[in-house]
């Protein structure tokens, strides 16, 4: 199989990689230059990462090379030759966002086992594959379908629902948004009176149009939209006690291009 490289950096791909490595910046290889891959590449470039893309379709490969001005390898992203040419061994992360779950899995597994890439991320098309991919060693699993479902769920949100907004510290704690129900047991109490658990902090309360910065004397009322920071197990217990429904979703299942970008940045935070 012959591999062709598009992009202005193509002839001197070696130099390009050397320069980028000296700067000690994040290097990411993206498999698949469809909509997700293309916008992810653009987002990561905006964040200052060095991005290499592998795409099987010549037209998509050319589009990315021309519009993003980065090296794009026109090849099957699960073939060893293409991954070697992308210099995957020097990449900090591999993100596989093809349309086929099996291709994304194999790319991630090759990256991890044969090239020692630290972080692998895969997009899944069938949400059922989320736990499977995690079990097979993919670090970050992203489902477009689940993301859409969660957004739609939010539209038809009812009283007493709890939603995970952001997961922090590897899932130890999360930022939640909750809509206090009509029958909220602590209704009318102030935060001081409510004696909320230690690992549960109220961040903000929105009452109608008004944004409230919570203090000890702030009262909790039904219909309040409360943003809180809590440990997951504490949140689950409170949901039981308050008879609210946690719609958190799978822990490792994240959504959107932006999320992949921010998740990828995370592993490097310790280093710099």
């Amino acid at each position, binding site marked *: 199989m012959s591999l062709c490289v598009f992009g202005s950096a193509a002839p001197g791909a070696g130099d390009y990689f050397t320069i980028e490595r000296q700067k000690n910046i994040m290097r990411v290889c993206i498999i698949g230059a469809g909509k997700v891959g293309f916008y992810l590449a653009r987002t990561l470039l905006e964040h200052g990462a060095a991005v290499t893309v592998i795409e099987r379709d010549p037209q998509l490969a050319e589009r990315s090379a021309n519009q993003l001005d980065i090296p794009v390898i026109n090849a099957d992203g*699960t*073939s*060893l*030759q293409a991954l070697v040419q992308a210099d995957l061994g020097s990449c900090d992360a591999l993100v596989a966002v093809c349309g*086929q*779950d*099996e*291709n994304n*899995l*194999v790319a991630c*597994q*090759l990256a991890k*086992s*044969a090239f020692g890439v630290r972080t692998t991320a895969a997009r899944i098309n*069938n949400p*059922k*594959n989320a736990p*499977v991919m995690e*079990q*097979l060693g993919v670090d970050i699993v992203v489902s477009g379908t689940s993301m859409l479902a969660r957004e739609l769920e939010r539209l038809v949100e009812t009283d007493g629902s709890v939603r995970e907004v952001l997961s922090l510290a590897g899932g130890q704690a999360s930022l939640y948004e909750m809509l206090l129900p009509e029958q909220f047991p602590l209704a009318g109490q102030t935060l001081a009176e409510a004696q909320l658990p230690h690992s549960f902090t109220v961040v903000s309360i929105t009452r109608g149009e008004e944004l409230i910065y919570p203090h000890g004397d702030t009262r909790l009322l039904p219909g309040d939209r409360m943003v809180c920071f809590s440990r997951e197990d504490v949140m689950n217990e409170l949901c039981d006690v308050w008879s609210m429904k946690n719609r958190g979703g799978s822990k490792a299942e994240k959504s959107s291009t932006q999320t992949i970008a921010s998740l990828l940045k995370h592993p490097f935070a310790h280093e710099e």
Partner: protein
Amino acid sequence: MNMMVVGCGPTGCSLISRLQAEGHEVSALAETAADLELLRTTLGADMPGLSRVGRAIDVDVLRAAGIESMNAVAAATENDNVNVMVCEIARKVFGVDRSVAVLHDPVRRDVLQKHLGLRAVCSTSLAADALAVALEGNLSPRQLTLGSTTVSFVPVKVTRKLAGKPLAEFDKPKGHVVFGVQRAVGDFIAASDFCTLLSEDDLIILWRVAD
């Protein structure tokens, strides 16, 4: 044993028919209704009791095809990556002891075998090996699979020129090892003694790693 074959193309079909002939309980998972129909036409009355149509990398489909009670799973679809994923799911999600994938790409096979411990058979290498043997004009070879490696035994006729000379003088082709000599009279002599005198119509049996 309970065995599952995923993918009912030509490879899957002949594997199923062979496993059934050897007395195994086989569950067939076809990716398309047309594949299942092919299996039905090929096997006729010997159609496996459990056969399903569905997406091979769907855990629910695999479960419905009985993967949880299988001793072994073979993934033989047309798509290498689907086969890898099926075997990985069988091994790591369902804890199936033995799984093997058919891969068309020999490079991918080598890498995944080395780094992931995936058991795989490379259809391309096996076909190339059989073709090379046929082109070289040797008699038909026999294959033996040891672990995940297939070894070919290739018989070569002793020429008139070589008759009466010791086995040591036989100039073996590169990559081959002499296994022994099948005498024209019927007995077999292992290759431990290279002083064995060859006669015309003896067969020198060579072996080599085919895949």
